């Protein structure tokens, strides 16, 4: 038993020949991909939510198509499809401009695809959060003569954050888990690193369990962080209405 224990610890040690370092690097890139995708999603989602609420009918129709299609199609198909469509489209564009084709960086592709998917979900979360703000607060801001930008920064944003935060936390959890799907198109994050480690040592069980625990650690740590942020944005609010 002692030797087996030693063997497993050796496999997971952070220094070669152990694979712990590879797994940890994978975990870091998982978090990095997810964070960048979330940031892009936030941008797209804010634009989408404001667009849907703007009252422009053509814009709203386009955004409805975007959110409906993205949310209805399986994530794996979206990621694979967008990955091919994105790199293909980019190279066609470059060819049309008489530029040489580029090999799209895996990280950029992963972030772009996941961010585009996140944006659709984010649009709905933020739209709901904005609609939940009492209309009087916005009217008051208008009455004070605030411009749209100032109103967004001073009134809308602080008021929507507490409403949107649970949804944002859910989206963060799902993007950390969806980022595992990027392994299927071949970018090395935690899931693919684990598979490599397993394939070259044949200790699949150990490595997959280890990476499941790493994902779990990411989830639990994010729970704590989101609880702290929620406490911060809800400061001064009554606990129960």
């Amino acid at each position, binding site marked *: 038993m002692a030797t087996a224990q030693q063997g497993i610890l050796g496999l997971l040690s952070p220094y070669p020949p152990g694979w712990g370092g590879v797994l940890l690097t994978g975990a870091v890139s998982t978090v990095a991909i997810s964070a960048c995708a979330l940031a892009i999603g936030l941008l797209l989602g804010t634009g989408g939510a404001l667009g849907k609420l703007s009252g422009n009918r053509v814009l709203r129709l386009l955004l409805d198509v975007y959110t409906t299609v993205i949310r209805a*199609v*399986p994530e794996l*198909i979206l990621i694979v499809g967008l990955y091919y469509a994105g790199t293909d489209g980019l190279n066609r564009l470059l060819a049309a401009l008489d530029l040489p084709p580029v090999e799209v960086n895996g990280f950029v592709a992963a972030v772009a695809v996941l961010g585009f998917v996140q944006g659709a979900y984010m649009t709905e979360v933020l739209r709901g959060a904005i609609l939940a703000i009492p209309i009087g607060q916005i009217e008051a801001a208008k009455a004070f003569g605030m411009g749209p930008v100032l109103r967004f920064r001073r009134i809308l944003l602080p008021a929507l954050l507490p409403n949107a935060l649970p949804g944002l936390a859910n989206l963060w959890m799902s993007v950390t888990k969806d980022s595992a799907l990027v392994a299927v198109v071949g970018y090395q994050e935690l899931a693919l690193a684990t598979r490599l480690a*397993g394939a070259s040592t044949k200790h699949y069980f150990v490595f997959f369990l280890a990476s*499941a625990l790493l994902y*779990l650690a990411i989830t*639990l740590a994010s729970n704590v962080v989101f609880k702290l942020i929620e406490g911060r944005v809800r400061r001064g609010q009554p606990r129960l209405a």
Partner: protein
Amino acid sequence: MSFTWISSYWPLLLTGAWQTVSLLVISVVFGFVLAIGLAFAQVSGGRLTRLAARGYCTFFRGTPLLIQLWLLYYGVGSLLPMIPGIRQSLFWPILREGFFFASVSFTLNYAAYEAEVLRGALLAVPKGELEAGQAFGLSPWKLTRRIWLPRAIRIALPTIAGEIVMQLKATPLAFTVTVMDLYAVANKVRQDTLLVYEPLLVVTLFYLALTAVIARVFRGLEAQVPVRR
């Protein structure tokens, strides 16, 4: 856009669709049964069962389904042959199939999410209805079977529909463990014909149709019981 490949691939597409639907039905049915147990363990279990059920849900909801699937297929799958006699047993043809591992991991995963939904629903059943049942002299078992659980499932129906659609959207992962599901067929068509978008489009339409069917079925189920608003 060219769809001539469909004429030669439609039997394969049908098999793929069948595999996808069976994965969905198996995981939803068994997962739901498991979820009922997990939900009751959390709501009315002792300290230890409560903790175990909580831990189960946290683990399966906190890790990606892909990792769970690979942990089962590659990890447990590589340990299974070490059990003496298992290769000779009559279960072996099932146990070495990717389909088996996909069904098991989807079931376990679905159960974790569904248990959370049911837990909330069990707690949302109006207390007066349970007390009425008790006043009629129903035993705890009968009360659970006739009032508490059916009432909770009714409360949870819209959420359950959502969870089933989520589960449907997770099924393409099975292709990574050699299951010939609908997505895997699309993949094969791509490899054979070098068409990227057309097979994905056809498969996507199928998923959309299936989602519409699920939504329709649940709308029917919800209409079964009149609700006063």
